[in-house]
């Protein structure tokens, strides 16, 4: 009896919370993210406290990182050129990866023959730590942005390719008979069924790749560059300039967040059914 009373009570409070939350979307968002925010602030405070007891070359501190970041962006030694170089490599690489990944993904997903003979290579390349290609690329293409862009493409193509291929098979299996039964031509089946059906898979792959290109950019610039955020990271690391190192780290992270954010937004805009269908279930 007591248990059921308690259950009823908790139910009704939950209902109230829900009602209140849905009454203002801003409130709901603050509820959803408030925990994350509290954790973030407490970690910063903890970092600041511990950092103040140690030599800054170990973990620096939030205020030191922030002042270095300010100096880099708006002070005497600005790093906008490095940011621009890194961003251009990253986005050119991502654009090429999107095209290559989609085209080959569609081909592999559509054709059993192509799937048959490419499958071992796809598995092999996807499982290989691609960092080992960097020195080779530098030998072939020189220590400049060509090598870095190729490396970024190599890294970012796989998630798109694999997702598009899987989506293509899935959509084909589900809807090709429908298209055939409706009397659609082959072109129309691809145009009206396969392409829109694959779009959410493509966006999922692109979101993963948008995170990977930041890694690709940093790693390739650390190895094969005299400019860019990755190069700065490497040189600050070798000079034990931890605060500057972490400031560059913050910039790279912001790039990653922006990339993933844009693609999440694109998914909501262009493939809302994929998001909503998941929620309904």
């Amino acid at each position: 009896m007591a248990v059921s009373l308690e259950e009823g009570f908790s139910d009704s409070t939950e209902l109230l919370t829900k009602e209140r939350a849905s009454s203002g979307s801003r409130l709901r968002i603050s509820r959803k993210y408030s925990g994350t925010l509290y954790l973030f602030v407490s970690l910063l405070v903890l970092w600041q406290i511990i950092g103040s007891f140690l030599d800054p070359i170990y973990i620096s501190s939030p205020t030191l990182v922030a002042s270095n970041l300010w100096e880099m962006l708006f002070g005497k030694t600005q790093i906008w050129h490095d940011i621009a170089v890194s961003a251009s490599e990253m986005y050119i690489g991502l654009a090429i990866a999107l095209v290559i990944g989609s085209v080959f993904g569609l081909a592999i997903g559509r054709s059993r023959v192509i799937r048959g003979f490419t499958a071992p290579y796809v598995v092999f390349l996807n499982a290989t730590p691609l960092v080992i290609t960097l020195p080779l690329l530098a030998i072939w293409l020189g220590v400049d942005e060509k090598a870095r862009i190729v490396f970024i493409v190599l890294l970012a193509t796989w998630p798109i390719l694999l997702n598009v291929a899987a989506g293509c098979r899935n959509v084909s299996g589900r809807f090709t008979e429908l298209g055939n039964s409706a009397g659609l031509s082959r072109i129309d089946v691809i145009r009206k069924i396969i392409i829109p059906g694959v779009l959410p898979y493509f966006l999922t792959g692109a979101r993963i790749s948008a995170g990977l290109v930041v890694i690709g950019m940093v790693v390739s610039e650390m190895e094969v560059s005299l400019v860019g955020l990755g190069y700065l990271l490497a040189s600050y690391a070798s000079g034990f300039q931890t605060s500057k190192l972490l400031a560059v780290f913050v910039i790279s992270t912001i790039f990653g967040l922006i990339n993933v954010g844009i693609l999440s937004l694109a998914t909501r805009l262009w493939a809302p059914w994929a998001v909503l269908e998941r929620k309904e279930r």
Partner: protein
Amino acid sequence: MTQTNDRSLLEVRGVSKYFSDARHNRRLVLDDVSLKVHKGEFVSILGKSGCGKTTLLRIIDGLIEWDDGDVLLEDQPVGKAQRQRMAFVFQDSNLLPWRSVKRNVELNLESLKELSPQERSDRAMEALRMVGLEDAADHAPYQLSGGMQQRVGVARALARQPAVFLMDEPFGHLDNFTRERLQQEIGALIERLNATVVFVTHDIDEAILLSDKIVLMESDPGRVSKVFEVDLPRPRWRYNVRAHPEAMRLREEIVTDLHLKIADWVQPEGAMVNGSES
């Protein structure tokens, strides 16, 4: 529905089909299947899962190739032109999630080049009205219940205004209550339109409720084992078909027929199977 002439609208003549497995072993799934469907007739293909009944339906709609025999629509071997006059209702409603309900119905009209976009839209709306879903025309599929989704699937076929409806267990995935309701509704609609239907099901009661003729299939390989005429008055939604003596008799007959087959290999408890004494 008695037929005055024997000229059938749709005829399947001696169709056989093999499936190959991964090791290229050929397995006979349909063995010399023949059936005739007259205009305005509702024919059910009744059989257990895996007996090849869905395969047969897909062959009729030209979705898969077959190995032997003919499929004729009005005495013409089915080709592209004939297939335009048939409409398939899938087991899952198979709605495209990125299209609205109405645009899903329109998909089935987009290969009919003679229709203007306006006519397509009008026909889609009319079909949705017939299944009582004109208000949901602009909804997304995921906003509909399973039963409503399946009604959209039926509307998609209706919009085509086909000579023959091919229905593959359209109510198979629905819960009991929704199934009962849709059987009545869609059954009444088909009666009113006097539509020609080939209906695949594994549900004996459903077959009796809806059909003029029931083709019972056996499996491994799939072949026609018996054809039953359903001699029940129409319109059937006016009375409780299941309680009708003829329906009960027919049900008994079909069940007996199935049980006789089962009795060939199931023995009463404790009894010896012939020839197993040695």
